[in-house]
């Protein structure tokens, strides 16, 4: 072997040695996270409880109707007293923008708060693993022992119980989701009497299977390999972002603690690996910031309990910024951080837009379309006639009776609408209207005419629309 080949082989062996630390969790080993109580565990339960709204919200009634209802067949969104129609969809865009930027803002300040405490994947997985560890044991050893135990009635009934509970939660999730889009009480009735619509069954099926598979089996794999947010979190962090982090300066060199002996040459970390054991995604926080970390703080609880037991100060693993860990500096004040300022600005804009939308939500929408084919017609007596399509949308909850009129054009008369029009809630009634102006009364080939729609039953509602009137040059 030549010298060159030998050195090449050496280099490659270096690479192989370097990657001997590789740990790619692709789901081969099931993560069985130990559950410990502590501050962050309480916080996590609290965050998770927000999802009770998802389960209970559809049953809220308001004025005899479902309080919050995404009524897709009727193309409207009912929110307590407010009804939002597709015409106001821009408010939804702003709301989505608000939450997207809120996510970015929170991430830049305190890391993946959403991932750790609110994300449905985290929450449902946590509930599912809670059930699993109660039934099969809360350490990998106990879980393995249970798995390898010979089949017995007790084992089979326990496994059945676990999957039964999982499926029950999954089914409830599916029903709850569907309940936001149709009357919740009627939906339960329809499901039990097997009369639900095909769409309702498909939604129930997809959500049941999805919940069961994602929370029961895929778990942290979703965070690792499916979730885009986990991948792009890095761009939202800066050196002032606080995250659960291991204080390597204080902890290293790590080593086992010998009873009664304080070894001055060693750091605070006693290498007990409890931080790894409690991690729901199975990572080792001591290796530094990594994609698998959902910043749930379970390792902080775990480490603090060990620090207490070994009479060392808490906070070997703690919420800390890069500046804190590496430069011993406190994070910059929020108002001095460009990201926070920009995100806050966008948040305010989006919020005020939605606020404006709600404040000025109209009860009707009135539109007049001037027909272009032909733009005008001369009648036998020489008068000029233009044709229009009048569209009135009723955004109130009751029928309205509409009376149309025109103004702003001398000599013009309205024809083609010989009686008032009744418009049902949420409906648009298009009407053909003719405007005539006698021969010689038209001064220009383009004039303006204002259409007025008065609601007879409610004098407060009167809307106008300015359109054009065209004639010969």
């Amino acid at each position, binding site marked *: 072997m030549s010298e060159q080949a030998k050195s*090449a*082989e050496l280099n*490659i062996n270096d690479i*192989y*040695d370097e*990657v*001997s630390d*590789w*740990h*790619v*969790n*692709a*789901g*081969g*080993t099931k993560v069985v996270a130990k559950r410990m109580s502590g501050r962050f565990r309480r916080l996590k339960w609290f965050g998770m409880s927000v999802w009770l709204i998802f389960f209970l919200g559809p049953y809220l009634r308001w004025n005899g109707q479902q309080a919050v209802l995404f009524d897709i067949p009727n193309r409207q969104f009912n929110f307590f007293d407010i009804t939002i129609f597709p015409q106001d969809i821009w408010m939804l865009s702003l709301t989505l923008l608000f939450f997207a930027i809120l996510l970015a803002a929170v991430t830049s300040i305190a890391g993946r708060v959403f991932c750790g405490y609110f994300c449905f994947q985290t929450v449902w997985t946590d509930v599912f693993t809670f059930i699993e560890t109660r039934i099969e044991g809360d350490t990998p050893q106990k879980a393995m022992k249970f798995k390898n135990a010979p089949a017995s009635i007790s084992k089979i009934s326990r496994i059945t119980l676990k999957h039964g509970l999982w499926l029950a939660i999954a089914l409830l999730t599916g029903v709850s989701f569907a309940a936001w889009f149709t009357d919740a009480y009627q939906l339960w009735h329809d499901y039990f009497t097997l009369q639900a619509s095909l769409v309702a069954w498909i939604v129930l099926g997809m959500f049941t299977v999805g919940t069961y598979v994602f929370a029961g089996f895929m778990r942290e794999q979703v965070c690792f390999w499916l979730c885009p947010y986990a991948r792009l979190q890095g761009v939202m962090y800066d050196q002032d972002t606080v995250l659960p982090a291991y204080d390597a300066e204080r902890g290293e060199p790590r080593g086992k603690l010998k009873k009664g002996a304080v070894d001055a040459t060693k750091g605070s970390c006693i290498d007990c690996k409890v931080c790894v054991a409690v991690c729901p995604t199975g990572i080792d926080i001591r290796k530094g910031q990594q994609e698998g970390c959902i910043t749930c703080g379970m390792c902080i609880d775990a480490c603090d309990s060990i620090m207490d037991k070994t009479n060392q100060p808490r906070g070997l693993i703690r919420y800390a910024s890069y500046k804190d860990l590496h430069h011993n500096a406190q994070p910059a004040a929020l108002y001095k951080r460009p990201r926070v300022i920009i995100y806050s600005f966008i948040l305010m804009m989006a919020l005020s837009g939605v606020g404006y939308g709600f404040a000025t939500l109209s009860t009707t929408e009135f539109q007049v379309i001037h*027909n*272009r*084919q*032909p733009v005008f*017609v*001369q*009648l*036998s*007596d*020489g008068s000029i*006639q233009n*044709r229009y399509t009048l569209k009135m949308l009723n955004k109130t909850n009751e029928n309205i009776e509409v009376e149309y009129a025109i103004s702003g054009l001398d000599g013009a008369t309205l024809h*083609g609408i010989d009686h008032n*029009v009744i418009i049902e809630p949420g409906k648009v*009634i*298009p009407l*053909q209207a*003719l405007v005539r102006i006698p*021969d010689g009364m038209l001064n220009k080939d383009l004039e303006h005419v204002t259409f007025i729609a008065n609601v007879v039953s409610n004098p407060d509602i009167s809307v106008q629309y300015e359109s054009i009137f065209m004639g010969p040059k």
Partner: protein
Amino acid sequence: MADNNKNPNECPDTGHEWDGIRELTNPPPRWWTIALYLSGLLVLVYFILYPSLPLVTGNTKGILGWTQIKEYKEDLAKIEEKRAPFEDRIAALSAEEILEDDELLRYAVGSSKVLYGDNCAACHGVGGYPQPGSGYPILADDDWLYGGTVDKIIETLAKGRQGMMPAHAELLTDEEVDGLVEFVINSSNGEATEAEWKLYNEKGCVACHGADAKGIQQLGSANLADKVWRFSGEPDEIRHTILHGVNDANDPQTRVAVMPAWNEKLAVRLEAEEYGDDPEEYYEGDETERLTENEIKKLSIYVHQLGGGE
């Protein structure tokens, strides 16, 4: 899979090696393998259920018997089903009654848009306004050769129309033609002189266009006393109409104006009903029905609301 993805130093290899880089025998993740086999299965299921393999003549049909055209026809049938109650009511009511029913009127107008586009717009233009100078009647104004009530429009659609004005090139002198052109222009503005009226009456125009020059709807003759021009208001064009007439078979330069019959059977029936006769006696068996009776009813309502229905 964490345990399968062994440290390269420990993992067996296939024996393939390029420049010191070994090909390891780590299996792909289990879920990936399962997904691969499942997609294969999916293809198999698809081939069994749906038309797939091309054969020498035709193709495998699949056990579902699905075809695109079948799906299209099913969708069409669904629409027909939705329309059926409206169509039934349209068939049961007269056109005048439909005009009084807001909902049915909206349905008739909405569903006629395509019918109008397919059958009428080629000549009469979208919105009832033909290309200027094309010589087709405007439907969006209130000037009707044969009457502008819905029932008259139905009659026009059913039996078609072909008016006739004889060519006058051989019958009139140049001066007389000039005088009549002047008359037509002035009468449109209500300013025809007594001499011009005299000429109009003496030359026989009055026979068809009426004593007041407003036309006679039974004949379909044009109204010469209003602002709407049947062909054109330009003096040269008026002269052409007088000289060569309309639909005069003996004059090659004559203006051609023919509205085809869209439902002869209906036309025969309407005529029989008018005289209180039994239509069965009148049918000859070769009556064409280019549009159904309901379609004609809906179209006449559509035309009626274009701007000048009576």
